């Protein structure tokens, strides 16, 4: 299934962060993404949530999808040798008829599309044994193993692998996926969501957004026309692009630039959506030198084509567009909340009283930062 499932997507995205670190349940984000129902076609929906596992905040939380029980067994065998599994359990879901009844009418006029044929959904809270990190960092070790599982264990897929966060995704409308995963029972300080409109239909759960690696999560509306070179740029750095969806390159590019190359987030965004040369040529000397060097060195990381993206990580949330803004994005603030969505209505739906509302310029990032500790 992983072999032939590249999916150009249309889609809706929504994200919200409480910059003071207050956690809130998943109802708002579901309502927000449900309003944009028509931007998707029921072939994928998903959420990323940060701060949901305070009791296991120190463990890496692996959200796993298995096509069959053999995959689960093989994967657990793999984990056993490489991690200390502190807890593993089935993902709580509400399935079947109960689910249909529960969804119906709850999020507006939509809902009630039953979620069918889910894979085996299991989560693992794991420590990395000290002995494994003599030569590589914990994060590097996790990345390597995520790549291994996705590429080597048939039928196993890592949906997310960060600490105190997780991805909840699948085939269906996002509001139905949200109910399916019982997101009203989780509390997070960052929620991002995605409703999908793939133009071909593999119906693969792993192919839904968000895409996650470590604590990075990406929801993405658009298509990366530069996917071919972004993939080839990433591969020599040890990333295996097995999912054949353009979105995963964004997650890996952030991981490479920010975590491995340690370049500041603002600069990483400049690499992914750089200013035009005509603008660089007019910049003050210092800025010009930086922008020129970024384009010279990180040409392979430039994301081209239409996109709006919300990147989540444990300390914040960042929204940005392609260089000529071929996909919509509106941002808004209200008190300590920052919202981003494909449509303003999706923000108004959950927060009618807004302070500032604006549509960020092409290539300009909107950065939400956690200013305090998570409450």
């Amino acid at each position: 299934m992983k072999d032939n499932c590249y999916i150009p997507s249309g889609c809706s995205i929504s994200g919200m962060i409480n910059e003071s670190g207050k956690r809130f349940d998943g109802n708002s984000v579901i309502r927000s993404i449900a309003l944009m129902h028509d931007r998707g076609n029921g072939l994928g929906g998903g959420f990323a949530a940060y701060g949901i596992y305070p009791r296991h905040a120190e463990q890496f939380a692996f959200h796993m999808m298995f096509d069959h029980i053999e995959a689960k067994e093989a994967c657990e065998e793999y984990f056993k040798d490489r991690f200390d599994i502190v807890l593993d359990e089935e993902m709580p879901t509400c399935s079947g008829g109960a689910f249909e009844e529960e969804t119906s009418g709850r999020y507006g006029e939509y809902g009630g599309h039953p979620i069918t044929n889910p894979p085996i959904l299991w989560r693992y809270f794991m420590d990395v044994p000290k002995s494994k990190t003599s030569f590589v960092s914990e994060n590097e070790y996790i990345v390597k193993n995520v790549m291994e599982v996705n590429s080597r264990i048939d039928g196993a897929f890592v949906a997310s692998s960060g600490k105190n966060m997780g991805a909840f995704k699948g085939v269906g409308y996002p509001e139905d996926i949200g109910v399916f995963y019982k997101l009203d029972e989780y509390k997070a300080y960052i929620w991002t969501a995605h409703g999908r409109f793939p133009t071909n239909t593999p119906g693969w759960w792993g192919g839904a957004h968000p895409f996650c690696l470590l604590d990075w999560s990406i929801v993405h509306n658009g298509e990366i026309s530069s996917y071919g070179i972004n993939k080839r740029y990433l591969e020599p750095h040890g990333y295996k692009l097995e999912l054949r969806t353009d979105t995963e390159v964004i997650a890996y590019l952030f991981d490479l630039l920010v975590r491995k190359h340690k370049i500041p987030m603002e600069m990483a965004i400049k690499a992914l959506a750089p200013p035009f040369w005509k603008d660089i040529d007019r910049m003050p000397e210092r800025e010009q030198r930086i922008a020129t060097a970024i384009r010279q060195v990180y040409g392979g990381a430039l994301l081209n084509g239409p996109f709006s993206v919300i990147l989540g990580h444990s300390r914040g949330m960042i929204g940005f567009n392609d260089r000529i803004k071929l996909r919509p994005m509106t941002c808004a603030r209200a008190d300590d909340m920052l919202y981003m969505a494909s449509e303003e209505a999706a923000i108004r739906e959950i927060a009618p009283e807004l302070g500032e509302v604006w549509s960020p310029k092409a290539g300009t990032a909107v950065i939400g930062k956690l200013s305090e500790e998570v409450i």
Partner: protein
Amino acid sequence: MISEIPPEFIVKIDYEQCKRCKRCVMNCSFGCMQFKDRVIPDHKKCVACQRCVTFCPESAITITKNELSYKENANWTPEIRQNILKQAETGGMILSGMGNPRAYQILWDHLLIDACQVTNPSIDPLREPMELRTFIGRKPERLEFSADENGEIELATELGPQIKLDIPVVFAAMSYGAISLNAHKALVMAAKQSGTLMNTGEGGLHKDLYSYADNIIVQVASGRFGVHSEYLNTCVMVEIKIGQGAKPGIGGHLPGEKVGEEISKTRMIPVGTDAISPAPHHDIYSIEDLSQLIYAIKETTDYTKPVSVKISAVHNVAAIASGIVRAGADIVTIDGFRGGTGAAPMVIRDNVGIPIEVALAAVDQRLRDEGIRNNASILCAGGIRTSADMAKAIALGADAVVIGTAALVAMGCRVCQKCYTGNCAWGIATQKPELVRRLDPLVASERLSNLLRAWDLELKEILGSLGVNSIESLRGSRERLRGIGLDEMTLKILGVKPAGVGQ
């Protein structure tokens, strides 16, 4: 001895049209036209350079192939028999000019480019910025930043010298000697006009062109003609020529008759002496030796010029290129087996080397596999004919392409393949003053600039249809190419999927 070789071409003169103006007699530099009451052509001397045809005011001349000069035979082609006859008469190696003309499969013509439909919009280059700016030179793998006391982010990495190209095309190395000074002038003026570079080739740089240093690549080849420290510093980039696509493993020979006063000064050899470039550099017998020369040049230029190493595309090109990058080269220029030449033994030109398409693909992939792709730029030479070839080469992984023959054609060359005779009727590949005069550098440079402008527009259209607005997003993006009529192994080497396969 009277040659028994039948003429290759027949020159037909329409005597009803002919006004006996003798312009054809004056224009033919191969001595084909005689005037005895009327114009009498000597068919055997005709090379089909089209000079007389172009300049006949009455359009009274046509040149046709001498079709039945040899009885038809698919195996013993006219070309083969003609060459045997020549060798039987002379006992010599057969020389030829220009690139390999044989009907080998042209892989560019088996590659097709993608375009956007619906899910990702195509971009109109007339309405949106479309960026072709390319930087040639060694880049670090990553950048480092530091913050000053005010928290302002500052770049901590210092990049080596980078050459800015406004369009990812440079002119190929063609020496003063192989081509005329007027041709050199035209190339350098066009390079300046178009924001790109010309390459001196191995014959040094004429003093008249020193003011164009910002648009010049100077070459250091095995003969070291015209190489001195001022020369190495009158450029933006230095190229060490190891090989040439048209004649891998073969040196060069500029006959003494072409070495007049100006060439003598430029090449730093006595007037009238043969300029012989040995097959290898006699101080480079290993990769360590190459590295020494690279660093000798960098020392001479105070590390202000990137150094390129040019090799011809041979079987093991990927490993050789990797070695070159590790030896310190900032740029690798790969020259495919269709690359041109002023003179080469025909047997070498037509049978040695490999196509640039596969060589380029193999080198780009090898450098990526080894994690050193950022350490060098790749210039792709030898067989780039159109902007489509350029786009495909960039998609396969080239940073920029190199054009020689296409530039000559733009200047007026008719590809008659007689460059080695010194009789070029168009004033390009000759040193005879009366012929050189025929090429007006201003006119020729304008024609070259026009060609680059046309390719610039066409490449922008291609990028727009691909839905990307920057050349970086095409460079190495083989996903946007599909192969048609190629075998599985070739597709694998090219890193391209067959047409019909989606992403």
